[in-house]
């Protein structure tokens, strides 16, 4: 059973992929209001794990509890209900390319609520402003936006339904350092004021030091560390040492 207070809990999760075991018994949980980062080398299955937490793919073994519900046991209808309670920011934004930004943000509202058009437009305008985009961006198509603006538009869409939990896949990848820090700051402000819980897969050390409450380290199919950044950074494990010293050259 999931422990009380955990929005997301992963229990003894195994994944068999491409002829080998990618995850060999993963356990962790994310409590309400936490901002948790998942790190690990390329190919350790961060994105796969994230997709399993979202309910897009099923683990080979083990359980994923989201809002206290076992994702594997849910019917597709119940799963869709759970889905309206979290938002996802995909790596490349995954904005619908045939729609404008405003239509993208309105899409989840259109599907899951029955708000009159005027209220919906008001909400869309608010979310776009909340994500730090100028209102002129609302009528643009994703192909006319810069990378940073695309991420912000995708964030506005992820926030459209007032989710309690936000999943982020590499939120700062592909952004220049200045935009990346701005985006981190925006995320932190939003998490704090909207009372969001966030679970992200990331590679960005500055994100870890700047805005994350807790880090979960994935290595060789297992969780090898789970704690605040400054504690994890002190751990004596060769991969963790290599990871946290990877940026020291710039000092």
């Amino acid at each position, binding site marked *: 059973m999931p422990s009380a207070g955990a929005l997301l809990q992963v229990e003894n999760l195994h994944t068999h992929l491409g002829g080998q075991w990618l995850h060999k018994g993963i356990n962790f949980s994310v409590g309400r209001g936490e901002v948790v980062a998942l790190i690990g080398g390329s190919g350790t299955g961060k994105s796969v794990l994230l997709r399993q937490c979202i309910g897009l793919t099923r683990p080979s073994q083990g359980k994923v509890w989201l809002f206290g519900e076992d994702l594997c046991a849910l019917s597709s209808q119940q799963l869709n209900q759970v889905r309206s309670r979290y938002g996802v920011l995909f790596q490349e934004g995954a904005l619908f390319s045939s729609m404008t930004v405003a239509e993208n943000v309105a899409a989840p509202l259109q599907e899951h609520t029955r708000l009159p058009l005027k209220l919906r437009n008001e909400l869309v305008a*608010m*979310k776009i402003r909340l994500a730090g985009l100028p209102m002129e961006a609302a*009528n643009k198509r*994703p192909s006319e936006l810069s990378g940073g603006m695309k991420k912000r538009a995708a964030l506005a869409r992820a926030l459209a339904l*007032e989710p309690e939990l936000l999943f982020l896949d590499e939120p700062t990848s592909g952004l220049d350092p200045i935009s990346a820090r701005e985006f981190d700051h925006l995320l932190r*402000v939003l998490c*704090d*004021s*909207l*009372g969001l819980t966030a679970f992200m897969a990331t590679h960005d050390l500055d994100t870890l030091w700047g805005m994350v409450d807790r880090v979960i380290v994935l290595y060789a199919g297992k969780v090898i560390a789970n704690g605040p950044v400054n504690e994890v950074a002190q751990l004596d494990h060769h991969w963790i040492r290599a990871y946290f010293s990877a940026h020291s050259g710039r000092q």
Partner: protein
Amino acid sequence: MTRDSPSLECVTAADGCVLKPGGCWCIDQLERLDDLLHSTPVPHDCRLKIDASGLTDLDSAGVMLVVNRLRAQGVVWSNVDLADFNAHQLDLIHLIAERLDARAQPRQQRSALLPLLGRKAAEQAQALVSQFVFFGRIVEAVVEVARRPRLLRLRELTTQLETVGLNALPIVMLMTFLIGVVFAFLLGVQVQKFGANIFIVDGVSLAVTRELAPLLTAILVAGRSGAAFTAQIGAMKVTEEIDAIATLGLSPIQVLVLPRLLAIIITLPLLTFVGDVMGVLGSSLVAHAQLDITYYTFFERLKSVLPASTVWFGLAKTPVFAAAIALIACRNGFAVQRDARSVGEYTTKTVVQSLVAVILIDSLFAIAFPEGGL
């Protein structure tokens, strides 16, 4: 999760007015909240205080609604006292009030008819120009290959020959065979009425070799390979592979277009010839079964009534069809923009345009050479 339904109370006192929201002020109650705020008049000329002691839940949609509606009633937001909100809610309210401050309504752009017409016309003219430019680049590439045959990508050419030609063989054979059967059957019904059974050979051989097989094969290839060309080149454009080819110092036209153009020009006549044979075979089958014409008689008659020039005329049209299909398909492939929608859009365009082109070219041939090959 059960949520308390929202409520709103407005108490006017001597020193100002107190708004008491209660229950859950969240997105799923937004419509009710809007009604509540509309039905509760708030005086904007006195001090306003919002007392959150009855509030159970609040999210950004709820905050937005309060801020927007109060502002619409003339309340200056910075003068509003917020009481009994917890720290998180205060953060949220301040963030949203601040963000909504700089709000400008998105403009709805609606253009008049004349500018729209002009823009469309300019677009069409541009498309025409780009088509000529594309054609010119292909001619340039062909000339270059003719001068230095080593530039021709033989491996790509053979791959394309296989996919365009060999792999299309079964479907072309089946379709032309069936058309031969159907045509001979319907014609057979007519010639039987006049007792002119043997003339079925004249009719079928002329129709199949001059019109049906070339046209049908071209249509099949346009739908099959033309669409594939556009989708392939378009997808490569989306993933920037075409830019990669250009940065390697290669010409995308040389690498992508010429092999496809050549492959389709080489294979379409061959496929059409197979189609000729299958169509005639199909009709001989029907002639045998329906009209009691033996195979020997059928092919003896065929030898005397079908001059080789008719077959040649039918085959001579096909390289022109092929060139049109390849040019349209490749140009549309290069015109794809970098989003998922436009690949589908241009693939559709390719199929429609190349079918129109094939039939137009065919009618031009019919008008220009009414006696051609007869």
